[in-house]
């Protein structure tokens, strides 16, 4: 799938405030509005600017990873994109061309889903029940809940309670929860941070198929450039001081941007990225 179908939202060197007005040549008959669009989105916390003037579009069929060092603001930006409260924000977020505040709560659930980094489960329900409660849109794209559970390797956990799961299992349940909601846009806060290498592959393969063109997209924060290179089509890099850069995966996953993002040297060995 050629990433060049999509306009990139990189201001020159990620200069804030430079909106990329290069609308994509609609591939096929995609609904014209992007699933997600930000206009001059600025998120600040504790007096520090995390992202400044983010002008960015996510179209159906795209798989975005958000990178940035710890504390760079990935989680807060995802929260803001989902419509949850963040300490300080300005600018606009649009879902399918309509400002997020203008969406009724119920309708918004069909438009975007968020997998938070930490699930709150003081009243732990069973996995099966949790997933049943998370269904919003009937899963028209074939995927029945039990198939999804098999794909994410949580099929055996249906009767377990959330507080009886390991960190990795719980994370995959949270991903399944987000998926069964059936929203067109999935926002995933660190979907693989607790996964062992085998399950990183399983989740990665699932994610690589989870954004069919013209239907869905996802945005996930993640850390491992090698994994990202296999799974994502696009990357949004947050440099932690408000500057950002967005574009197709092979434009962003390069030594200069990675070094600017993480503040350490990188080299690429046969498609794998290794920090020096």
């Amino acid at each position, binding site marked *: 799938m050629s990433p060049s179908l999509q306009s990139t939202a990189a201001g020159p060197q990620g200069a804030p405030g430079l909106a990329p007005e290069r609308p994509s040549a609609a591939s096929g008959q995609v609904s014209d509005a992007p699933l997600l669009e930000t206009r001059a989105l600025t998120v600040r916390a504790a007096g520090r600017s995390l992202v400044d003037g983010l002008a960015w579009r996510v179209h159906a069929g795209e798989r975005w990873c958000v990178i940035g060092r710890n504390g760079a603001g990935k989680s807060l930006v995802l929260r803001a994109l*989902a*419509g*949850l*409260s963040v300490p300080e924000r300005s600018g606009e977020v649009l879902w399918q061309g309509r400002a997020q505040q203008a969406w009724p*709560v*119920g*309708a*918004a*659930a*069909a438009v*975007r*889903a*968020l997998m*938070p980094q930490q*699930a*709150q*489960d*003081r*009243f*732990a*329900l*069973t996995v*099966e*029940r*949790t997933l*049943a*409660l*998370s*269904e*919003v849109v009937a899963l028209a794209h074939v995927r029945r*809940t*039990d198939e999804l*559970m*098999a*794909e*994410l*390797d949580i*099929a*055996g956990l*249906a009767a377990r309670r959330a507080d009886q799961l390991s960190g990795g299992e719980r994370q995959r349940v949270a991903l399944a929860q987000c998926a069964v*909601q059936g929203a067109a846009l999935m926002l995933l806060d660190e979907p693989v941070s607790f996964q062992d290498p085998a399950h990183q592959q*399983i989740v990665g*393969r*699932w994610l690589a198929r989870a954004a069919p063109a013209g239907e869905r997209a996802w945005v996930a924060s993640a850390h491992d450039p090698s994994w990202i290179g296999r799974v994502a089509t696009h990357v949004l890099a947050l440099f932690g001081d408000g500057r950002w850069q967005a574009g197709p995966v092979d434009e962003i996953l390069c030594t200069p941007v990675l070094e600017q993002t993480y503040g350490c040297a990188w080299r690429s060995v046969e498609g794998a990225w290794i920090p020096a």
Partner: protein
Amino acid sequence: MTDTRGMRVPVLPPASTHSGDPAVVRVALVALAAVLVAALALCLGSGGWDWQLIVTLRAPRVAAAAGVGSLLALAGLGLQVLLRNPLADPYVLGHSTGASVGALAALLLGAQLWIGAAAGALVAGLALLWLARPALAASDDASPRLILLGAMLASVFGAIATLMLVLVPDQRLRGAIFWMVGDLSGADASLWNLAGAAVFVAWLWARGRSIDRLMLGADAAWLLGEPVRRLRLELLVFASLAVGLAVATSGSIGFVGLVVAQGWRLAGVLRTRELAVLSTLSGAALLMGADLLARLVVAPMELPVGAVMALIGAPCFIWFLARGVK
């Protein structure tokens, strides 16, 4: 791809139609137990078996006990969900102390006790509502704030109640104290309690799925399209009204509200609908049983039912917890 793992286990069909057997059996058993306790409470007591006595004295009292028990158990369930804290109960948030202050004020002014109590609970509820406006709108970290606010309100009302006790004329003091501990001896039938409990259960049933989603977390529920703020407001209003009704009837009776829903949850019942039905039935049974004991133990005299229940119920609950039921 991953299907080749051979891990495909047949999974139960999506749970919406799954009001399965164990739930029905549980409800039936608890209903049976409640009916048994009610029958016992009607038939036993000083004065023995006397039709006249049963109809004019015991029946109203048993009905009052059932109503109050249901209401308190439901209020506990509602508040535990509202605060996302299994330890919440009507006392934590100052509802019942507020009602006590109202009742004491009524006693001092010579007004009807129940009017004072209902007004007091409502005032406490509204005060909390007003103070908690920002917290109710906010996300998951709201509940510790809400509990702290409620605890502060409870201490203020408690202090006021203590101060007012000093002012109560001596001949009424005993009544006032009995009432503060919780007492059904003066309770008259008022089917209001039972009706209130029925309405509360119906509401919980209607909102069952939304409330279950609230248990996933306020943010999670909101993301799933639930109007979290309105839901919490409704929970608070229902719980306040329930506590007001209960306290107006019988004074402040503790323990039921904390223990009933929590006990079922520990026993593995996690659905709001089932919890609501079970809580109302077992709350009623618990209070009818405790009241029966309160009447029987030192026969012509009566003990305050709240004390009796806590005395027997708390050790039972501790045993239940210690057994490690998860």
